């Protein structure tokens, strides 16, 4: 198996927020914690595009680089996870992340920032797989059950794809060739591009008639 990745096809995303709901339900995240969200560009204008955004499990994850307690690790499948027992809730990862993935629950009487929470690719965390502890801290561990992240599996238009990079790339390639447009991938190069590779040039703005 190559490596796990997310891919969002903005030509297909209809901003239904099914992925957001599925994520919250599967992981029972607390109030105010959105591991996944849908961002719409040019909302209300002709040609608007929506993208489902969460932790992209970057190849060269900036959160890992800035963490002062080194609480992040990468699994053999390329999933970036963290140990909440090690996290001090400093928020450095939030500033480093280009996708705004790290979330911080408000805890205590004075709204003190709690330990960081983010998408786990439905792979739990460093607790016993399938244990109550793991579920409480990190949510479900579907990967250990041979399943893929629920956000992608629940996606009604299959805009959001998750899984082995080679497989989902091939699915997307076939789609883009069939429809003859929309071959651009938002955030793909930012998350998985080669070191120092420039971000892809923005698409030419379509002239509205």
């Amino acid at each position, binding site marked *: *198996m190559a490596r796990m990745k997310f891919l969002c096809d903005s030509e297909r995303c209809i901003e239904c927020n099914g992925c957001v709901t599925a994520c919250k339900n599967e992981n029972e995240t607390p109030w105010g914690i959105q591991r996944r969200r849908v961002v719409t560009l040019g909302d209300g204008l002709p040609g608007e595009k929506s993208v489902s955004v969460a932790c992209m499990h970057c190849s060269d994850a900036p959160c*890992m*680089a800035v*963490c002062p*307690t*080194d*609480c*992040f*690790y990468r*699994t*053999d*499948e390329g999933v970036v*996870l*963290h*140990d909440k*027992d*090690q996290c001090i809730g400093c928020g450095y990862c939030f500033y480093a992340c280009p996708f705004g993935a790290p979330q911080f629950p408000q805890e205590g009487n004075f709204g003190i920032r709690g330990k960081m929470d983010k998408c786990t690719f439905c*792979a739990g*965390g*460093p*607790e*016993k*797989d*399938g244990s109550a502890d793991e579920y409480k801290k990190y949510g479900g*561990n579907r*990967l*250990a*059950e*041979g*399943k*893929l992240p629920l956000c*992608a*599996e629940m*996606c009604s238009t*299959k805009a959001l*794809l*998750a*899984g*082995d990079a080679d*497989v*989902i790339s091939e*699915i997307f390639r*076939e*789609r883009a060739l*069939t429809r003859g447009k929309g071959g651009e991938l938002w955030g793909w190069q930012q998350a998985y591009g080669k070191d120092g590779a420039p971000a892809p040039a923005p698409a030419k703005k379509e002239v509205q008639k």
Partner: protein
Amino acid sequence: MRMLAAMLISAGLLAGCGETAQTVGDYRGKTDAKPYEANYGGDKAKWESALRARNQTQNEYKRVH
């Protein structure tokens, strides 16, 4: 005296070369088990084929035809 000064200056100039590399630190948390250990009895190939099959459910070209 001049020799000593030259040595001190060169030592000072070379001090910059002793900088340690700034790399990502080693993970300091708990170790995580492999995802195929709990439910697949450590059979990685079986786990991978289950995921591959699951992956194809996202491909409606295959689901429909």
